[in-house]
Every structure is written in C-alpha cells, then in structure tokens.
C-alpha cells in the first residue's frame, strides 16, 4: 500500500472497491453489530446488518465468512431466516484466534462478512412434507435459519418436529427461542441435556433418547446438524426407523477456509463442503468414504 492511500492505483474504499465490485471474491462487506449476547459461556450470538444496507439474500443453511481485519476469517453458519430481513444472526464459539477476537465485540462495533456461500437446505424437497430437525449443541445455530423459516411459512410444511440436545443446561442456545418453542403449537419441540445441573427438570440423555417421545411418520424429511459423534448415533437410530437415506439431510462441518471452492481444506473426497455442501443427503454422503 502506498503512502498516498492508493492500492495498485485504486482508492481505498470503506466498502466495495469500484473497479472490483462484486468481482473480487475475497473482498468482504462491512457489517454493524446490532446486538451481541453471550448465550452460553463460550458462545456469543451476534445480530448483524450490512453497513451498505444492501439486501442480503441468502437461503437457510448457507454460511458466511466472518472476519476481523488483523485476526482473520472463519466460516459461520447463518443462524436466522432470510424471512426476517435487514438483520441476520450468527453464533460464534470461542475456539481460536478469530473467534476469540469476535467475542470481544459489542453492539455498535463492526466486522466483515463475505458470502453467503454453500447450497443451504433443499427447501423445495422439504415443502409439503413432515420435517424433523435434530440439532446437537452448536448445531442449533445453522438449523435455526430453517426453523425460523418453517415457522414463518408454516403453511408450506406439514408436521414440524424439533429435537435439540446439548451438554448441560448452561449450554442451551437462544434462550428466548426455546421459551417460544416450548409454548408454540407450530412446532413439536423436544429438548434434552446430557447432564442435568441446577433446576433442570427436562429430559436427561443424549439426543437420540428423544425419539421415544414421539412417533416418526413415514415420509418425514430429517435434517441433522451437530458434532461428528452425534451423526453416528442419530444415523443409526434413523436406520432402525427405516428412514430412506435420500430423506436425511446432514449439515456437516469442515474447515471451509475460503468458502468459494478453491483452498482445498474442506474437501470430502472429491466434494468441496463449501460449494457442494455444507448440506448433503445421507445418500450422497455414504458414497464418500471420507465423510464419516
């Protein structure tokens, strides 16, 4: 960068460079933090709005690359539905340099985002069907985009069931949403914790114990998102219930460094999680030996 504030003959812009515009896939957009909330001791929820106020179109299940200059970028699933426009939510768990730096942000601060990326959930396949969402731990964040979407367009879907399992009551995300879902007649909501602490009176046990609480109807589409270990147990359970593998949608995690199908870190065999996924059907994934 030269002293007169130009980069390669171009003015430095606060927003998109005029020569490059949307053409530069690595140039992020600035977003304001409207709200920052510590949902759990290690997970912060941020409500963001793009500073250029341009519409931000995305589909449930897509993700963005979130960054703080000087620290770096991380992939984060969009945790709110595009039906609730103008702002969007993400949840960041403090695990590394970037995520810990993001944890230092408050309302009024800014960060940068690129995206949206990835395929998202196949809404056309889910419409008009019974839908069961199984979320484990932080897996509730990306699935919340779909949960909100279904709740906002409730008529488009048939029976809607949600399983949410987490380690202990202190690690429950989106406490206001949980309150709402517990009361709502729009969703059959079941929750569990691996270990009960404090005043917890709900179910105790891994997420698969929730299958006993309700009966899965044939033709139900199942969406699963959670830690790798959870997939194993949930898929075993779904197999025992004879759910066809093409009806199971898995939102998987890999190291999606660039988000645009180039950098190679998120590959599962010949698929790029960031562009071919992050949502795959079980039928697709079971053909990939590196998936599980």
């Amino acid at each position, binding site marked *: *960068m030269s002293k007169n*504030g130009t*980069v*390669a003959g*171009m*003015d*430095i*812009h*606060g927003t998109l*460079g005029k020569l*490059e515009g949307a*053409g*530069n*896939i*690595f*140039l*992020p957009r600035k977003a304001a933090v409207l709200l920052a909330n510590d949902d759990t001791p*290690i997970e912060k929820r941020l409500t963001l709005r793009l500073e250029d106020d341009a519409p931000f179109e995305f589909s449930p299940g897509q993700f963005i690359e979130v*960054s703080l*200059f*000087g*620290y*770096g*970028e991380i992939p984060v699933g969009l945790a709110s539905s595009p039906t609730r426009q103008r702002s969007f939510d993400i949840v960041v*768990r*403090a*695990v*590394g340099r970037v995520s810990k730096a993001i944890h230092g942000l408050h309302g009024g601060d*800014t960060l*940068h985002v690129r995206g949206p990326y990835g395929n998202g959930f196949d809404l056309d396949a889910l419409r008009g069907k019974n839908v069961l969402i199984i979320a484990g731990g932080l897996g509730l964040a990306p699935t919340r985009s779909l949960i909100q979407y279904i709740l906002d367009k409730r008529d488009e879907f048939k029976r809607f069931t949600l399983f949410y399992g987490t380690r202990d009551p202190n690690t429950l995300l989106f406490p206001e949403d949980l309150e709402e879902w517990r009361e709502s007649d729009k969703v059959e909501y079941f929750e569990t914790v691996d270990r009960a602490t404090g005043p917890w009176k709900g179910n105790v046990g891994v997420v698969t114990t929730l299958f006993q609480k309700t009966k899965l109807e044939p033709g139900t589409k199942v969406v699963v998102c959670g*830690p*790798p270990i959870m997939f194993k147990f949930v898929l075993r359970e779904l197999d025992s219930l004879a759910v066809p593998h093409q009806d199971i949608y898995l939102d998987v*995690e*890999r*190291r999606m*460094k*660039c988000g*645009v*199908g*180039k*950098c*190679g*870190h*998120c*590959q*599962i*065999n*010949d698929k790029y999680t960031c*562009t071919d996924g992050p949502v795959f059907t079980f039928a697709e994934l079971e053909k990939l*030996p*590196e998936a599980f």
Partner: protein
Amino acid sequence: MNAYFISAHDFKPFITRLIEARRVIGPVAKRNRFTFERVTRAEDLRLDYDVTILPPKKIFFPPVQDLVHFEGERYAGCIEAEPQVLLGVHFYDVKAIDMTDQLFREKFADPNYLAAREATTVVASNVQRVSDAAFWGSIGADVAPKGHDAFLTMIETGYVFETRTPKGAALLEFGRFRIAEKSEVAAADRVNAEILEKCPERIDHPAEAVAKRLWEVFGDEALWEKLAEDCFSCGSCNVICPTCYCFDVQDRWNLDQKSGARARSWDACLTQDFAQVSLGAGATENFRESRGERFRHRFMRKGAYLNKKLGGPACVGCGRCSQACTADIASPPKVINKIMGAAR
C-alpha cells in the same frame, strides 16, 4: 494461427529486444538447477533446462499473495497485474496452467489469479533436455496443451515460432521472423513428437484404469499406510506440484499496528493439520489424521477426483514431486504402477 521461423543467429537479438520492451520471465540457471525468474540478459535464458524447481504457477499464484489491504476502517483489494511475457514453458507445464486456469475460473472466479494470467503472454518451448524423473510421455497423452500464446521449437537451423493467439503474434515485431517453410514446421513437429519417447519414467496404464483402480483400493488402509510409512508430512510434494493450488489465508499486521494485509499462501494437504478444525475447549477434529489418509488424498486428487472435470488426470508428469520428496516415496510412476499391480 501461423508458423514463423527465426534463425539461430537472429534469436539472441530477438530475446534482447523483447527484454528491452517487456518484462520477461523465463528459465534461468540456479546453481545446477533451474528456476523461472525475471530475465534481464538474453544470455541468462536457459531454454535447454530440464525442469524448473518450482513450476510457473508461481507467476499467477504466488507463494504468498496479498488479497486485501486494510488500514484502520478502510480496506481494498490489491490486484496487481503487470503485463509480462512468460517464456520457455514446457508443454507439460502449459497443461498444468490449463488446469489451474479452469479451477480458478470455475464457480467463483478468482480475480487475483485471473488478472495475472490475463496480463501474461505465455510462450511455450520444446523440451530440449529431459529430467531424470520425467514421465510426461506416458500421462494424459491425449490432453493437448492449450493455454499458451505461442510455441517455440528449436530445430537444427533455428527456431520455429508458432503463434496461437494475437497476444503471441504481437511478439513477432521484436525479431527477424519470416513465414516458416513446410519442412521447418515438419521438423518442429518431429522434435516435439520424438521427445515424448525419451522419458526415463513411465506410467504403464491408461488414466481411466488408474482412476478406477484408485477408487477400488481407497479402503485398503494397510496399503496406504504402507506407502506413506516414511512420509514426513512436509508437503514438499504439494508445494512443487504445478497442479496443486490449495492455500491458507492469514491476516498480518504491519509494524505500525494500524494497517496490514489479508494474504494467502500455498498450503499442502500432506501436512498434519490441513483438515483439522477446532471444536472448542482445546478439542480438535482432524478429518485426515493419518499419514496414509493424507498420502491417499494426494493420489486421489491427482489421479481420480478431478479427471472428469479436467478431461484427464491432474498430473502432468513433470516428476518434480519425485525429486522433492525427502523420503523418496512420492514418485507417481512408482506408486501408481505398484497400486495397479497390487493384489486384486
């Protein structure tokens, strides 16, 4: 386009005039090996090189490249593309450029790569000396090199210069070229055909059979662990590969602590933490934890995963990995021939 001829006597003045007019990158000697560097004197150009240490991908996709510069609240992309001539690229490296062209262009086009690519005139040249590890005569033989603007072939009396694009033809003004005789073009074709038989190494199986076999033995963990037994996970085989294009992205601060850059740098899937993610509380998940898995990934990537997309294997037979591997286990001909012969 057309074929031209320049005499051996007129060749050096051509290079000299070209260097005066344009920024020229070409093969030059570095001790007993060769590298693509800026050429400032015609006598430094070594078209008789066998293989360069690094492939020419570094011209379009530098080992470290700034993507975004930031200073306080302001930030901007930093795509810099200086017009230049990349001279003396062997046909196998042109094929690799074709692959990276396609891979950087697909889905989300990468402007950093493409800007440098478009600003560069690529002049291929015939292989005059064959590297000890070369096997380009027997891999992807039906894939023709495309991404060059001109092709230079040394024949007995001088050089045949075949222009492929207007960019290539634009170089004619710098030398005393004339239209080539049919016999001269035929001589050039002969030179380029004959050299294909001179590789010391070869893969004895067609690409489709190799790809099929790689999928068949994918689950043979013992085979892959055995092949990777001595792997240091150093990633040298990735770094020197003309078709490897994985990268890492990191931010760095300048000394003023106010400005800095987001930069990408070459990464390597053979390194231990390439596919590792953090889970929190110090826990990690490594999606390719063992050396065997990482070693296998490289061979799947070169021999199977990209074949359909690229129209052939993502390996051009340069042999650089065979030479760069400290443990001497990376040679594709050795590994592939072994896998093809492995008990079925």
